[in-house]
């Protein structure tokens, strides 16, 4: 089992004691978690367990009621909305289940949008976008509109758009949710291969075990808590507050 070495590497994202309530609903109830540079972390759990909320909180879209998220050296809670938006735009990539491509733009134009938003010149953005589409094997579909692409092609265009800015972390929310088995496989291979090649960390939210199997390690979120994790230690401090299970610790490769 090859997992990134927790020792000696600073976590890219460090989340501590995240609590978030939506009115009466307790979405997150004290989640702590680290994401290391270049690793692929799967976040699993049943529907409504809070995994998407966790992803949005890690990305700074949602602000936790208490607890902190640190990306690199910056604490998200201390940044204003505009700076957080900018951080997401420049250092994070996003891939969703579907419906993320702008329907009125061709695949290539869609990929250039994050670059243009980051201030890259159109000419250069088109060149880089084309290269990125080629890297994902969908270079020949640059002129097609999203409606004219298959689900797998559209997802690969979306991955190209997410990776074209060379983000430090890629957030993928059920990226294979709308795909058949084979498309899901090609999509996940492309996503993890390229992210690893770029040294981009991936936070992969899924409820599909075969998709999660592309990750280096995974955590399971249940009722707003991390109920189990597999791989490297989730948190290298304060083990007492990390979970509710008790009474066993002898199992190798498995800790709270």
């Amino acid at each position, binding site marked *: *089992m090859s997992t990134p070495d927790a020792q000696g590497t600073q976590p890219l994202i460090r989340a501590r004691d995240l609590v978030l309530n939506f009115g009466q609903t307790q979405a997150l109830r004290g989640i702590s978690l680290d994401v290391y540079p270049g690793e692929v972390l799967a976040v699993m759990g*049943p529907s409504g367990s809070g995994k998407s909320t966790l992803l949005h909180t890690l990305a700074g879209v949602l602000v936790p009621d208490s607890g902190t998220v640190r990306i690199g050296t910056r604490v998200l809670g201390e940044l204003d909305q505009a700076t957080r938006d900018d951080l997401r735009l420049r250092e994070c990539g996003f891939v969703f289940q579907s419906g993320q491509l702008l329907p009125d733009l061709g695949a290539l134009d869609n990929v250039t949008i994050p670059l243009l938003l980051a201030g890259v010149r159109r000419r250069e953005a088109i060149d880089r976008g084309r290269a990125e589409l080629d890297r994902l094997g969908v270079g020949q579909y640059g002129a097609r509109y999203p409606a004219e692409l298959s689900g797998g092609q559209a997802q690969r265009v979306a991955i190209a758009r997410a990776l074209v800015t060379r983000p430090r972390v890629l957030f993928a929310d059920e990226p294979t949710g709308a795909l058949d088995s084979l498309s899901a496989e090609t999509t996940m*291979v492309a996503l993890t291969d390229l992210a690893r090649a770029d040294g981009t960390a991936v936070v992969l939210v899924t409820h599909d*075990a*075969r998709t*999660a*199997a*592309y*990750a*280096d390690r*995974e955590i*399971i979120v249940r009722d707003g808590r991390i*109920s*189990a994790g*597999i791989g490297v230690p989730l948190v290298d401090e304060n083990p007492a507050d990390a979970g509710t*299970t*008790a*009474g*066993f610790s*002898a*199992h190798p*490769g*498995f800790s709270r």
Partner: protein
Amino acid sequence: MDNAQTLLGLLEAAPSHGYDLKGEYDRYFGGQKPLAFGQVYATLARLIRDGLILEAQGGESSGGPDRKSYSVTAAGRVRVREWMFTPDTPEPTLQSNLFAKTVIALLLDEDAASLLDAQRACHQARMRELTRAKRDADLATILTIDHALFHIEADLRWIELTGARLTELRAGVRGA
């Protein structure tokens, strides 16, 4: 399915006579294939030999042919937990054993969800290994691995569903 551990678990839940023990076992797990009396006594003898249970003359007789009552020793309790929380390697017969562990855990008021999670982690670790093995493999290997992956996934789904039904199951076990 590990009958010895299962009987040990049942005894920890409630010290019992051999006859009642078989009844208990059959009620939870014997659905299609009830346990033979001979097998029960042979297993009990082995457990006594290993120092996991104690034989005690029961005070009250329920009128059955066997008046001996059995209870679990401290070593027996440790053994039950070791068995319960050690995930099994994914294999076709896994389900029945896992089910037994879950029921025993519920009977003993142990954290059944954790043991399911542990098993699940083991399964997923295996899936990651297989997924990694698929890389650069030839098509025949890939197809074989795919088959294995789907089987493990089926197990995982069962684990997930059982996890979601634990409350229901606990009520059933308690009421029994």
